């Protein structure tokens, strides 16, 4: 081993740096000005979905909470009426909370949901400055609606929204 070996090695390393300097394209993303695209099956922050008519898909069944092995989800149910309807059927989630400090983004809640109400979205921008902020409530998780008429709760015609769980055309889907 020669005396100049370290110097040669250093030079070779710097040469690689120099080569990369001219090479296109760069891999650095200018976050937050620029946001990186996520993969189609990316598991980010949860969203509580709505039907096209604006009614909430969530029926407060608590199966997500049961499936959650980090014990991050807390659900409380109440009864729907046609005067004050949140979701189809008799039952809706009056409280829906996810503790984001506990969540491990495994997606079991999605799998457990009988109405496809809870979906792990593509939002990865979660930050909080205290523990309380880490508890995301229903208002925060619920999808927004294009039209104020579609907000829940709302008054609906009597006897239409009778069933909580939609009849799936192809249950294997």
């Amino acid at each position, binding site marked *: 081993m020669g005396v100049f070996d370290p110097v040669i090695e250093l030079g070779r390393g710097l040469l690689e740096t120099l080569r990369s300097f001219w090479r296109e394209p760069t891999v650095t993303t200018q976050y937050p000005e620029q946001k990186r695209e996520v993969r189609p099956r990316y598991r980010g922050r949860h969203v509580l979905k709505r039907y096209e008519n604006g009614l909430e898909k969530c029926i*407060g069944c608590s*199966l997500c909470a*049961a499936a959650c092995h980090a014990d991050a989800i807390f659900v*409380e*149910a109440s009864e729907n009426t046609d005067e004050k309807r949140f979701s189809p059927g008799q039952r809706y989630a009056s*409280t829906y909370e996810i503790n984001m400090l506990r969540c491990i983004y495994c997606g079991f809640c999605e799998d457990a949901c009988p109405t496809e109400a809870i979906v792990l979205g593509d939002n990865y921008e979660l930050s909080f400055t205290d523990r309380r902020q880490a508890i995301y409530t229903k208002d925060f998780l619920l999808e927004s609606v294009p039209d104020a008429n579609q907000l829940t709760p709302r008054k609906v015609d009597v006897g239409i929204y009778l069933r909580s*769980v939609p009849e799936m055309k192809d249950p294997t889907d």
Partner: protein
Amino acid sequence: MTKQVTLSINGISVTVPDGTLIADAAKMVGIDIPVFCHHPKLEPVGMCRMCLVEVGRPMLDRATGQVVIENGQPKIQFMPKLETACTNRVSEGMVVMTTTDKAKDGQKGTVEFLLTSHPLDCPVCDKGGECPLQNLTMAFGPSQGRFIYDEKLHFEKQVPLGELIWLDRERCIQCARCIRFQDEVAGEAVLGFDERGRNTQIVSLSDPGFDSVFSGNTTDICPVGALTTADFRFGARAWELKAQASICTQCPVGCNTTLNTRREAKAGGDVVIKRVMPRQNEEVNEIWLCDKGRFTYHYTESKKRLVKPLVRKDEKLARASWDAATKFAAENFSKAKKDFVILASGRLANEDLFNLKSLADTAGGTAILYSDMGGGDVTAIVGVGQGTNIGKMGKGDAILVVASDLYEEAPIWWMRVKQAADRGATLIVANPRQTKLDKFAKYVIRYAYGDEAKTINDFGKKSKISDEFAKAKNALVFYGNEGLGLNGSSGLASACGELLKETDHVGKPNNGLVGVWQRVNDQGAWEVGFAPESDLEKALKGKVVYIVGADPVGDDPALAKALKGAKFVAVQDILESATTEIADVVFPAQAYTEREGTFTSGERRVQRFYAAVPAKGDAKPDFAITSQIAKQMGVILEGSSVSVVFDILANSLEAYTDLSYSKLAEVHGQWPIVGRGDLYYGGTTYENTLGLGVQLAPLSQTGKTVHIPKVRKEAALRPKEKELLAVPVNKLYDRGVTVNPAQLLNGRVGEATVTLHPSTAKNLGFEAGAVVKISFEGVNAEVVLKLDDTISAGVALVPRSMGIAIREPVVAKVK
């Protein structure tokens, strides 16, 4: 002893009593045969076909009638088709196979059929998670159904069957457990089937809907989510609930319960009770619970709960520290000497009452039980013998119920007495009016109000009925306080005691006297030395009074007046009341759901209850508050450990000798097996793992000679012309502070009423439903008139705890 039969189930040899059903025999050795319609407490019907098994019996030679032997073994002949294990009874040498391909195929097919019209809305079903249909489908069902989804039969979603129970007809599998429960066990056939075939549905046959005080039990034994309670509707999922053992505090039966709790955002993040479920104790409530016990827990979470000690300053109650409040009370108690009076009710635990009694004794005061029923001294002597179990009484036994409407006062006793009568026990009902128990009685004795003790004395003399009572193998007497005040009920208790003693029905299991008390622990209060006082006004007026667990001001204007004339009033309770308003110092106590303790039931069974939810505010358990006050008075009472208080109690009271918390927590195997993973078998009743309690031996069982205390006779009240004899009767759903906060039951409480004989009403010129004015000593009230032609003319029945203060029979006027 019944004949024993040996058979083989899945190759395991089983020996069971003759007449046992195959499904039960299998359960005894831990083999699970799936069932829906079969329930160990109901008669077999074989409606659901879930329990299909292969059954073979030894082949008999037609000529000789002998068992055919082949290769040294009896030749077993299997039926060509599957048989139901829930309708076939065991026989000698029978061979049962529950897991063969053929049997499994049959079970699988049955599940598939049962699911043809099931809506599969488990996510929104209150039964989800503890549902036999879910469990058995997973364990025995096919993975897929072959029926077309669109062809499912749809009904309107849940409909109320009454105000307490919801029915979902889509989920119903027509097992008829609810109908059969109401017919066979509860004796109130208020449910039935309507329509036929696929349209078969459960309907209520009564008005108001599902008019039974046992309705909640049908939701326990319903194997699907067809019947659910309105109280727990969407309350929580079954797996989210925690369970803690408790005792129902609504009547002296002392039913074992389980409190299901959960932390809730709606309740501000507190742990709250979500539902009350029965807990198995075959010697007390079996696996049942009445609706009052199931739905009245709400008062413990009332907004009126006291949470801080209060001390009166400048005419107003202001918050104070525990130290200041107890010191203030202690100073006044110490000064009082002989004027110190403790007035406590049977809502308190044994330990609380014991500490209170100790304080009264040491401080030289008196301890008064807030009750208008006497005879606890008699039940301590000739109470039911150790080992009593009404569920084992039947043919050859006798039960006498006097001056009590058990249905209204202690529904589970009513049910068990009725079942004993069904099994052949001679039931004798003595009551001035018709009650629901009459239908099941062999003999009904009518007497005039005021003649209770005389009736029992006369009963002892020769007659056909008394002969049968005297010759019975075992005899129980239930006595109550219908139409009676303190003296009257004391006299009745003595008369009953004498009757039992004369007929030698004391000191043995299934023999003795039971008091149908007003509160859960009245018997315990008598045991520790409390006794009621006949002239309560006089006992309170001008005294220094320490009221615990009672609301005399709200109950009776006469007592309110007496207490306003008291020197000092300290009140210790869980809820704000009219009495706390006039108090000089108020101590917040913990409800029974928040602490540990023991109650002594009417059958003198000592049972433990446990803490299920955290205490509200600064509330403390009663025994600890008493101990803290006592300390300030220089009296040392145990105040930190409830089990130590019980140990001291056990050391000083003869009846409780050798008892301890660990002994009360002992359990032994019970039949039927319920509350384990196999909910389909017994329903959602909880298994008893935290104590069956211990029944105290009455003095007559200890071998000592006993004397029944004599009671001074009082001349019966005879009203003059144009006057009526108003007598108190008891009502299950009343306006008591523990019932009121249960909003669901409000509809069943109804108006304050007065009941008259139709002829009396006619003479007064009133018809049923009219609003009339009733007036007697210090009471003027407007009530709704009801008619009953089984009572005698000249009597007015006034229900207790309905806003009209009536402690004993009085002469009244109705206008």
